[in-house]
């Protein structure tokens, strides 16, 4: 009997290694999404289209412009729960169940794991966004003008949302606090954000806060892509969304590196 041969060592770096890791993590994340994907699509549509209907009940009779505004907030509302609420609570669940350390022990680059999360959570949000916009448009009988800008707008908003959720999930050590933050976030988004209502309705100080927070900017770029003439300029909104995306990446990088 001969001694077992040592497996040939492969080089664990380089673009090829990164790509292999990324593909493996994509498969891993996609497979684990099976447990929540369907429920989640329902939640998204309830939050997007459902809130468009509910806001309508609160407002009663409204002029067509207000209805358009309200309905075009629906896709943004459908984006938020996936990235900003589900993603951090999944990470919190990993921490509670003790599988968090296992995830980081997988032999892939940490950036591959992160990019895989961003890819999955950006893409899986899209069907709910489309359904929400369609339902809201149908309910208010709107004549939407969807331009090609819808692609960068929705992708940017979705990526930003996933990045913020990823940052919160990793940077907040206590899973209980993560849940409080995500609930508070949904509360603020649904009741106090200029997503479905014009920012002009907001008192000066709150409007100023929303120029810094990402919610109004998300709604702005998405609305601009599906309507004509409701939004003045979106350049600044894209910049703010970009800043939040990169900022939360840095936050997550810091939190993950700190783990050592």
């Amino acid at each position, binding site marked *: 009997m001969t001694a077992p041969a040592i497996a040939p060592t492969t080089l664990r770096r380089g673009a090829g290694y990164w790509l292999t890791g990324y593909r493996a993590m994509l498969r891993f994340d996609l497979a684990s999404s099976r447990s929540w994907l369907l429920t989640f699509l329902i939640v998204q549509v*309830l939050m997007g289209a*459902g*809130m468009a*209907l*509910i*806001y309508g*009940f*609160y*407002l*009663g*009779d409204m002029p067509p412009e207000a209805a358009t505004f309200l309905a075009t907030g629906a896709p943004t509302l459908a984006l938020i729960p996936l990235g900003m609420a589900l993603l951090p609570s999944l990470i919190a669940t990993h921490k509670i169940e003790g599988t968090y350390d296992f995830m980081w022990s997988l032999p892939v680059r940490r950036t591959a794991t992160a990019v895989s999360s961003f890819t999955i959570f950006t893409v899986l949000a899209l069907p709910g966004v489309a359904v929400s916009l369609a339902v809201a448009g149908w309910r208010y009988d709107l004549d939407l003008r969807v331009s090609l800008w819808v692609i960068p707008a929705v992708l940017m908003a979705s990526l930003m949302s996933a990045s913020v959720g990823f940052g919160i999930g990793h940077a907040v050590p206590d899973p209980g606090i993560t849940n409080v933050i995500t609930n508070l976030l949904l*509360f603020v988004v649904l*009741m*106090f954000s*200029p997503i479905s*209502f*014009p920012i*002009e*309705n*907001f008192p000066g100080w*709150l409007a100023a806060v929303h120029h810094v927070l990402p919610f109004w900017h998300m709604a702005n770029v998405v609305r601009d892509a599906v309507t004509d003439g409701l939004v003045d300029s979106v350049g600044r909104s894209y910049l703010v969304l970009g800043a939040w995306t990169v900022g939360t990446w840095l936050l997550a990088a810091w939190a993950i590196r700190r783990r050592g």
Partner: protein
Amino acid sequence: MTALAPPAALRSGLGYWWHSYRMMLRWEITSLRLVLPVTVMVQVLTGAGFVLALGLFFGRVPPRAALFVSTGVVVLTLTTIGLVLGPQLIAQQKAEQTYDFLWSLPVPRTTAAFAWLTTNLVLGLPGMLVALGVAQLRYDLDLHVSPAIVPAVLLTLLTGTMIGYALAHALGNPMLIAAITQLFIFVILGFSPINFPADQLPDWLAALHRWLPLAPMADTVRAGLTVGVVEDVTRSYLVLGAWAAASVGATAAILRRRG
């Protein structure tokens, strides 16, 4: 040495019931000591939040909309505890397997139900008062509080709590209870004529609400706080009374069956 059996106390009568009720109330409040302040805070925040958020929904808030939301949040705080928090707590007891222990306590079962009702009243009042206060400050409402508010609040609380109670005790699966209560929040906040007039709902939904308990709850409470907004509350009291009787009956039947 012979051991003497302790004298047997009579386990019936009003005195025993009252004693048990006080014990159960203390039990209830003690076991909720962590949940209680958070719940009251959430109630106060959502109540005041709805009142203030309305100003953001509208550019200029119509007085009628302000009046509806401000009186609607009272119903909201009264129903969400009974219909949402209550079943979730019972689901948690079932999941943690303390449910059977609770029913093994040597008290009449009605005292447990009454203790829970009392707790709900204590939980609901602060949110209700703060919301009304905030609404008054923000919108300068035309409120006329009449004695009719007392039966309206009590009947609303009783019906909401007992429906939640019956549901939670009847259903075995905690996940199912959680899903139903989430649905309740959605229906209560968004699809019921509580925070807005029924004529702003689609006709079929408004017609359905004439037979469900939520709209009558809102009507009776609103009639106790305003003048001239709600036309006739007799029908509302009848429908609500029927729901109250049915939910108390169902709860009694379920609790007896477990015995």
